[in-house]
């Protein structure tokens, strides 16, 4: 069903365990080990970072919204679960996924415009021929079994932001964490509401601009503590309905400093959030894992070598003539 995530093809066919995901990728490699050995590629998390940057460039040129980019990113991930990347021209796949996502998210772009913009970004890897794009669209839709409707965490965030009294900063931070999760495997692993709740939690415990480096460890500790509290809370307050209101504190008394007030408000929100999670049926373990994946993504990002990744991708495209057509 289009509205209910639980009935959706996304939940029924496009959610995997980590083991299943690993198996699918292994199977693709096993189909042609020689091909895989001839053209070594960095780990998927680095490839995703590269794709993300490239799709963002194209998205910017076409001025498409983040939601469209997110849908395209998930299309690419699904596609590469089923097709060996070394048999494709990733630039063509990126372009096609964005072209298709534009239509699905009701902001269509003309195929010629998309082809022209893509070509100007990657002149060595794409032709101007729109029929290549049209053909790749068939390929993409076919591999996805025409299951093109994507449920995104942005909607959950929009629904919950007032429940948690999120400030604009916190909303923005949650939003960008959701953007970032599309660079990871998370959208293939967890339902959108888990991702949205994780993003909200992180926005509450993280300071803006603190998502990198050593402070990440502290942040994950803070997030973990909140979830642990929620888990305990779930056991302890069977039927309890007081959690939500007790978590909310009114702004600090007169005389306290702004910083104190902020801290107090933040603390109150985390409490409130933990109480909400404790009371709801939300899969807390999934949130814990989601949190860890996000934090490790921010760490991975620091080690990412753009040039090496690009060179390895471009090498197999050129060597195998995948750009010709």
């Amino acid at each position, binding site marked *: *069903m*289009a*509205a*209910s995530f639980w*009935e*959706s*093809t996304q939940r029924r066919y496009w959610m995997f365990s980590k083991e299943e995901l690993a198996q699918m990728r292994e199977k693709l490699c096993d189909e042609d080990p020689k*091909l895989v050995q001839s053209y070594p590629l960095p780990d998927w998390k680095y490839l995703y970072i590269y794709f993300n940057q490239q799709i963002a460039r194209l998205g910017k040129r076409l001025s498409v*919204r983040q*939601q*469209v980019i997110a849908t395209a990113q998930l299309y690419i991930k699904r596609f590469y679960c089923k*097709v060996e990347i070394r*048999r*494709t*021209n990733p630039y*063509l*796949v990126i372009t096609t996924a964005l*072209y*298709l996502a534009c*239509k*699905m*998210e*009701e*902001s*269509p772009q003309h*195929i010629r415009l998309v082809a022209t913009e893509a070509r100007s970004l990657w002149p060595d890897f794409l032709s101007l*021929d*729109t*029929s*290549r*794009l*049209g*053909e*790749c*669209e*068939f*390929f993409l*839709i*076919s591999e996805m*079994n*025409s*299951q*093109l*409707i994507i449920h995104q965490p942005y*909607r959950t965030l*929009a629904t919950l932001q007032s429940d948690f009294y999120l400030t604009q900063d916190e909303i923005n931070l949650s939003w960008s964490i959701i953007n970032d999760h599309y660079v990871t495997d998370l959208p293939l692993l967890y339902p959108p509401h888990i991702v949205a709740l994780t993003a909200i939690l992180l926005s509450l415990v993280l300071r803006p601009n603190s998502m990198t480096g050593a402070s990440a460890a502290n942040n994950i500790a803070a997030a973990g503590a909140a979830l642990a509290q929620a888990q305990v809370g779930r056991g302890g307050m069977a039927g309890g309905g007081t959690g939500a209101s007790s978590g909310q504190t009114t702004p600090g008394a007169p005389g306290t400093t702004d910083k104190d007030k902020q801290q107090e408000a933040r603390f109150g929100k985390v409490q409130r959030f933990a109480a909400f999670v404790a009371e709801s049926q939300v899969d807390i373990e999934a949130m814990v894992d989601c949190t860890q994946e996000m934090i490790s993504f921010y760490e991975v990002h620091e080690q990412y070598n753009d040039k090496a990744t690009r060179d390895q991708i471009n090498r197999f495209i050129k060597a*195998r*003539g*995948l750009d*010709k*057509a």
Partner: protein
Amino acid sequence: MSLTNPHSSSSAPSSARVQGMKRSVQAAFDDPSDRGLGSGYQSKVRVVDRYKVIGFISSGTYGRVYKAVGRQGQPGEFAIKKFKPDKEGEQIQYTGISQSAVREMALCSELANLNVIRLVEIILEDKCIFMVFEYAEHDLLQIIHHHTQNPRCPIPATMVKSIMFQLLNGCQYLHANWVLHRDLKPANIMVTSAGQVKIGDLGLARLFHKPLHSLYGGDKVVVTIWYRAPELLLGSRHYTPAIDMWAVGCIFAELLSLRPIFKGEEAKMDSKKTVPFQRNQMQKIVDIMGMPTKERWPYLTSMHEYSSLGMLQTPMMHHHSHQHHHGSSKSSASTSHLEEWYYRTIGTHSGSSTSSPAHGNPNNNNNNNLASLGAEGYKLLAGLLEYDPEKRLTAQQALQHPFFSTGDKVSNNCFEGLKTTYPQRRVSQDDNDIRTSSLPGTKRSGLPDDSLARPAKRVKEA
């Protein structure tokens, strides 16, 4: 690719192939499965291997529909909708799939409800899209048409009730899933030989949950004109599932009277491609429903075409012969004549010339004539044909209407207990080759009667 079928348009060398020749021959041997390459996209499934086409059903702007049976043991019959590739006649090229086809493919893949036509599979092959649906022997247009044939006789009350319930149930499902159908009309409501009603043709349907752009932006004109809601006729930008409910009301009326209740003439788009005010259609509505007023419909005055209402004539019933004349001085322009229309329709149905009410029913089942639908039938109809989209019944509300809980029990087989048999869908043998791209005509083979000619579906993609 198409060695078995020399007629296939794709047997000509495509540019893709020629280009493919240029690349390394060795690579071609190494990697027959490479994609995005000269070898091109190949479907894993071939439509002619999976299905045996047994005839041609109809064609439209989208392409053609064929009737088929499975070749690989799939039970039942199928309707295969083949989307017309662009650039008919020339060398067929991949040109990008139209947004409406993408929508229909994506929506049909998600939806699953007894009262919505079921998608079996989609095959993308030879630059064409084949959507395979379960087959339905009848549709409401054909059923209504059958009842107008000699002797003209109304559709039995139990059947009307069952059809309405199933239709509303399908609508409720679509709307609960944030899907607007946007083209409900008798021709798009399928009925299986087991009497199950199935909403079909989601070619104009789309999701309406928080669209990135106003719904108006994409398709300026939706819904075949006779079934188009007043808010659309008045230029509403932000329409809602209520537009489908208006169409359901029109279909209800048509099931009762066997003719479209608001049979207007469509004003064509002018050369500047501005959307004209559909004056004639609005007049037809006003004639029966009375002038809309801002008391009944508070947002009326903010409608884009509000001022155009002044162009309309004061409503009058065209079928005045049966009307009470005495009240005309008291009734204002906004008085609805729907109630009169309803009781006249369910009372004396067997032809406008005969004066013997209710006795002309050849079903010889007094309990099953339309009069048995009674006052609740009117209330349901009036609730669906409510001017104000916010007050109009939702599908959920309509399903809970006393109309369905009083009187005869609602069956999920609309043919239950009836002797009438309806003719099978006409299937022509002229074009059985699903793989050729012969120019589609615009005629529907199912209906020989051109006097029934319906206005064409208006699809205007921006």
